């Protein structure tokens, strides 16, 4: 379905270019829910935006992204517009700022349909039944209201229904649980389960919340400072990860005793050579310092570390 090979993304700034994504490769199969876990600034959101070519013009992108075998970066703007919304849709990070404050909800929902050749009235009807499927109370009233009149949870569901309106083959969800408390996080998990059962579209879920990834994703990749360090089934990653950083992440969870890792992730302008986790890795070897570990198959998943 989606194939990403050696993706590099750099943002030139006043004092040097920030290497947001430093050689990432992964693929998502039909109907699979693939998660990317990473902390703030690990470059996970950049990947999502790169797939839909929504990065700012200043970004320098290398590498190939194949969707259904076609390279996204060789598509012309018409093909690109065709793909966005119909085949690949985005569920943005903070629902509050992703809805146009001065436009009625009905316009914002139906315009996706209009764009892909469906008349507004019919589009609105379709949108309403998607909304009711996603447990959004009284879709009719919501459509006539303005975004600021909706609660956080309702905004999220509205966004979900917008991005699902054309039954896309791939849905990219960017940090759906950011800033939510436990209870609304359960609701989000429920929402995503409904989406998968109802539409069966494959999903790319970008989050920093391990438990959420375990509950919603089949396979999960762990990102650190712009590189993928481990890819494995969601269950194994959360319970028994193999990469030292992934282990550190799991141990830092409150329920596992809040065992902290010392130090911070390296500066992104001139990345140290060798393994990026070298300074903070407890089981580091001198080879880690010099040579960038390559992705190796290991116990059903892949890990990039010299220990294995």
């Amino acid at each position, binding site marked *: 379905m989606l194939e990403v090979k050696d993706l590099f993304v750099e943002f030139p700034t006043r004092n040097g270019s920030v290497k947001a994504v430093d050689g990432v490769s992964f693929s998502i199969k039909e109907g699979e829910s693939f998660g990317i876990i990473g*902390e*703030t600034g690990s470059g996970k959101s950049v990947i999502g935006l790169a797939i839909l070519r929504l990065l700012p013009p200043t970004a320098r992108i290398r590498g190939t992204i194949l969707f259904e075998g076609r390279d996204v970066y060789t598509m012309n703007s018409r093909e690109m517009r065709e793909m966005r919304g119909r085949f690949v849709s985005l569920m943005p990070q903070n629902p509050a700022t992703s809805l146009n404050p001065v436009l009625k909800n009905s316009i914002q929902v139906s315009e996706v349909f209009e764009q892909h050749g469906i008349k507004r009235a019919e589009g609105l009807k379709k949108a309403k039944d998607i909304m009711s499927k996603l447990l959004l109370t009284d879709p009719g009233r919501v459509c006539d209201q303005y975004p600021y009149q909706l609660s956080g949870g309702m905004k999220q569901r509205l966004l979900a229904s917008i991005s699902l309106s054309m039954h896309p083959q791939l849905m990219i969800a960017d940090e759906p649980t950011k*800033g939510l*408390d*436990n*209870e609304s996080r359960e609701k989000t998990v429920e929402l995503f389960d409904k989406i998968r059962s109802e539409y069966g579209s494959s999903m790319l879920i970008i989050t*920093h919340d*391990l438990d959420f990834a375990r509950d919603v994703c089949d396979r999960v990749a762990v990102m650190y400072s712009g590189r993928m360090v481990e890819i494995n089934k969601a269950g194994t990653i959360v319970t028994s990860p193999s990469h030292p950083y992934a282990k*550190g*992440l799991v141990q*830092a*969870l*409150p*329920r596992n*005793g*809040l*065992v*902290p*890792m*010392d130090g*911070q992730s390296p500066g992104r302008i001139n990345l140290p050579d060798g393994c990026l986790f070298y300074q903070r890795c407890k089981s580091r070897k001198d080879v880690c310092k010099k040579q960038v570990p390559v992705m190796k198959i290991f116990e059903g998943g892949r890990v990039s570390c010299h220990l294995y």
Partner: protein
Amino acid sequence: MSSLLKVRNLNKEFNGARVLHDVSFNIEQGETLGLFGRSGSGKTTVGRCVIGLENTDGGEIVFNGNPIIANGKKPASGSNGKVPGIQMIFQHPETSLNPRMKGMDSILEPLQIHNMCTNCQMQDKAKELADMVGLGMEHLCRYPSQLSGGEIQRIVLARILSIGPQLIVADEPTSMLDVSVQAQVLRLMKRIQEEKEISYLLISHDIEVLQQVCDRIAFLEEGRIVRVEET
């Protein structure tokens, strides 16, 4: 030994709606009391009332023996109702520090306010505080916009510790931080608690964090303390 902080049936109305109903709890010397509640349960309001940022509609708060709030009113004592012994850590790192002041000035400001030591001592006092919260000197000469969330919360902690408080009210100090950084900050707070005999009122919606860090947890629902458990 009487408890450090005694709160007796604290009430608070917020434009008509009653937000807190007879909230009572106390915090012993050197203890960490967790305050758990979903968003909207009024836990932040409790914190702000204890700290004196919000005035209350009834109830007493006694800190270290002397009352700071008697039946809802602030007695004349204390610098406009703010007790130096209690300090607060806020939830959002990006607004907890003055964007125009370097880390160093933020840490030293409390000392300057109470002119607790001469300028020559300032430098090494700052060094000492920075070491205590695990920050190097290079962090001190950066602006908050050049620091990560975890580093900012450490500077906030150092800033508060400089005047030796007895109770720190922390309103979801680590909810905006990543998991690994959260672990570092909470570990740091525990270490400081042992060294400086400080007690915490830790407010959070994340029950796992509270179970891990607090000695006792008070459960707050719709402005009422429903139960208090030992961890």
